[in-house]
């Protein structure tokens, strides 16, 4: 039986390997496992946008896009397996998990394939001098922490002196990301920081929320993930914490996090870096040409959700970078390093967003060699439970670069020293 198995295995792997496609984008989706509720809308949005381009424009610059979907279940080893299997054709990797990002940073740098972590992963990858192949657009966790504090400060009339801000976070590398920034900010603005860790998976948070109830912080920030989000929002509703003073990061602000809580979640806020809703021309085209035509990646029920739009955002930026790479290199069949060069000089103006059918969907993007992130802006959105939709409350706001940038410099240089990288000059 074993030899048979081995023979069959060899046959399938050897047979499955070669790919004919022109622009191959491997996607490391997670439609299963504990984080599937967050992974499904994103995966649907990303695929549907690519399908739209293939159907409407015949791909990009005359080349069809071939999406190679892997199912990682948010598991690092599966991600590595997928990477190894597809790296011969893959143009770019969007790892979709912090763990996989950290795997791919050294590997893809060695293999000369660009990696784009869409507002997750290693924050200091913003430093393009050290991280030549890694991009962390459009905004980082440290920017996010700063924007959230800035928003709170504006709400409080310009000063947070003597206020108390609690941070409830997933007890993992991801959840701990904002602590350093918040500590620096608390020194600067004179508020007290109260970090509260929640261990994975976070189904039981009574202790943390009893503490919040006792300490009565003025604001609660959340770096949560998976089931922890729903439970936290539910517990906040239970203790009657004012929802408009409860702000989550962008991974704690999608339909999957608030819908299970029902009416209690009304008024909950979170950060976001792209538009909400489906009132964009390109989104309507997706609806009519992809979903209604029966070519959608999912069942269409996620259309217009925050996670879905995030997938559309990632796909739009990726394909735009591919288009610019084609223009710059003068050939339609680009290589990963062409794409990297294009991403490093990526320009998406507001007019260009409009041309793409997404006017006002996201602020203009302009990446440089030294700063692998742009525009580094985030807005605050609020959940309207009755209408069942997220609405942007503010404009896209700038973080406090004076605080964030030195931290990025410090961390990226530490990485460079550890990994033996000589930073580029970027002149």
């Amino acid at each position, binding site marked *: 039986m*074993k030899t048979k*198995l*081995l023979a*069959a*295995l060899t046959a*399938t*792997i050897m*047979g*499955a*390997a070669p790919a004919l496609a022109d622009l191959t984008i491997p996607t490391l*989706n997670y*439609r*299963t496992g504990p984080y*599937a509720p967050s992974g499904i809308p994103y995966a649907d949005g990303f695929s549907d946008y690519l399908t739209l381009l293939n159907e409407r424009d015949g791909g990009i610059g005359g080349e069809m896009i071939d999406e190679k*979907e*892997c*199912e990682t*279940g948010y598991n*690092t*080893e599966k991600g*590595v*397996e997928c990477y*190894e*299997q597809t*790296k011969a054709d893959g143009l770019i990797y969007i790892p979709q998990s*912090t*763990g996989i990002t*950290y*795997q791919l*940073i*050294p*590997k893809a*740098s*060695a293999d000369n394939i660009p990696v784009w972590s869409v507002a997750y992963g*290693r*924050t*200091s990858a913003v430093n393009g001098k050290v991280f030549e192949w890694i991009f962390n657009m459009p905004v980082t966790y440290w920017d996010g922490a700063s924007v959230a504090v800035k928003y709170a400060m504006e709400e409080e009339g310009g000063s947070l002196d003597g206020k108390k801000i609690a941070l409830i976070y997933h*007890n*993992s*590398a991801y959840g*701990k*990301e904002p602590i*350093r920034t918040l500590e620096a900010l608390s020194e600067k603005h004179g508020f007290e920081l109260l970090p509260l860790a929640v*261990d*994975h998976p976070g189904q039981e948070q009574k202790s943390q929320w009893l503490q919040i109830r006792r300490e009565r912080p003025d604001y609660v920030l959340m770096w949560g993930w998976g089931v922890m989000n729903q439970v936290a929002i539910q517990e906040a509703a239970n203790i009657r914490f004012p929802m408009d003073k409860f702000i989550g990061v962008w991974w704690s602000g999608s339909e999957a996090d608030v819908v299970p809580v029902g009416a209690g979640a009304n008024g909950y806020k979170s950060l976001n870096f792209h538009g909400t809703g489906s009132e964009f021309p390109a989104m309507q085209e997706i609806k009519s040409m992809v979903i209604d035509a029966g070519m959608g990646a999912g069942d269409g029920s996620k259309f217009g959700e925050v996670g879905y739009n995030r997938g559309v955002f990632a796909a739009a930026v990726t394909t735009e970078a591919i288009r610019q790479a084609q223009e710059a290199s003068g050939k339609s069949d680009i290589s990963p390093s062409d794409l990297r060069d294009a991403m490093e000089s990526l320009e998406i103006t507001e007019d260009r967003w409009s041309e793409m059918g997404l006017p006002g969907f996201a602020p203009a993007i302009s990446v440089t060699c030294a700063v692998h992130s742009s525009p580094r802006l985030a807005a605050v959105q609020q959940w309207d439970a009755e209408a069942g939709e997220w609405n942007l409350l503010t404009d896209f706001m700038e973080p406090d670069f004076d605080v964030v940038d030195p*931290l990025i410099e410090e*961390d990226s240089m*530490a990485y460079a020293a*550890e*990994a*033996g990288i000589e930073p580029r000059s970027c002149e």
Partner: protein
Amino acid sequence: MFYREAGDFKTTYAKDSQTFPIRFDRYRYYVVMAVAILVVPFVVNDYWASAVLLPFLIYAIAAIGLNILTGYCGQVSLGTGGFMAVGAYACYKLMTAMPDVNIFFHVILSGLITAGVGVLFGLPSLRIKGFYLAVATLAAQFFLVWLFNKVPWFYNNSASGQISAPTRTVFGAEVTGPTASAEVKYLFCLAFVIATAWIARNLTRGSLGRKWMAIRDMDIAAEIIGVNPLASKLSAFAVSSFFVGIAGALFFAVYLGAVEVGEVYGINKSFLVLFMIIIGGLGSIFGSFAGAAFIVLLPVFLKNVLVGQFGWATDLAAHLEIMILGLLIIVFLVLEPHGLAQLWRITKEKLRLWPFPH
């Protein structure tokens, strides 16, 4: 015909008690070794090495380790993931603290450190038995993961909380780091696999192994005939953790390169290794290999068949994959509770008679 003792005369005691008393077995063993060392490194590609062979080799070490504890000594442990984490973090600290020492020694030292931690968590096994012990080892699993996550010293205060392996070489060839070639990584792990399998095989058929098995079969009876339960159980925990620690260190340094403890060394890892030894066969070194191969290859195989051949949606395939895995485990247990190793044993018995019926 070929597989029989007849005509294979032993003239010394050493020969009589050798590991593979049957000539065919011995040659088969040499052939497998030769293929693994001399052929595989030259034909393997990146995908095979990184996605299939490396995890197989490393899991085989972990499975041998757990098999010593659970299969030979009868102490069920669900803390394998936690002990692997000890190996990984020990290796990371050693690699960064003593960059000039060869990584080979770092890995062995990590194993020794893990052995110490294992003995510590093995102490309650003197009082606690059966499922109570199995659940008690989960305390090690959760506590260790929490500790590595919470104390910044373990990850050198890095902002990300991740540990990543710096580049290290053996005989001038890079073993860790992003540019290390697949063949070198494979050979490095293979060296450890051969060494651990050899050690384990000889330990388990020596007096220590017999003590373990006596404890497994009935610890009170073993105590009465003069086996010291303290020494036996703790030595099983130590040896087992030593192997598991090596596996954890290799898993981090050579296979993944960067690790976050809660994700990679979580409780799922403990269950996965336990699966391997149950499917492979409790109390069998061969079973550890067979189980590791089965668990590593099956998902890859199913994925390639369902997605690659039939073109199913990846999430459907993933759901089916986990259902089939569960089903196979059940079917295996119903048909052959003693695992792949038992099938192998039966085959061998049949072969000894073949082609003559009696």
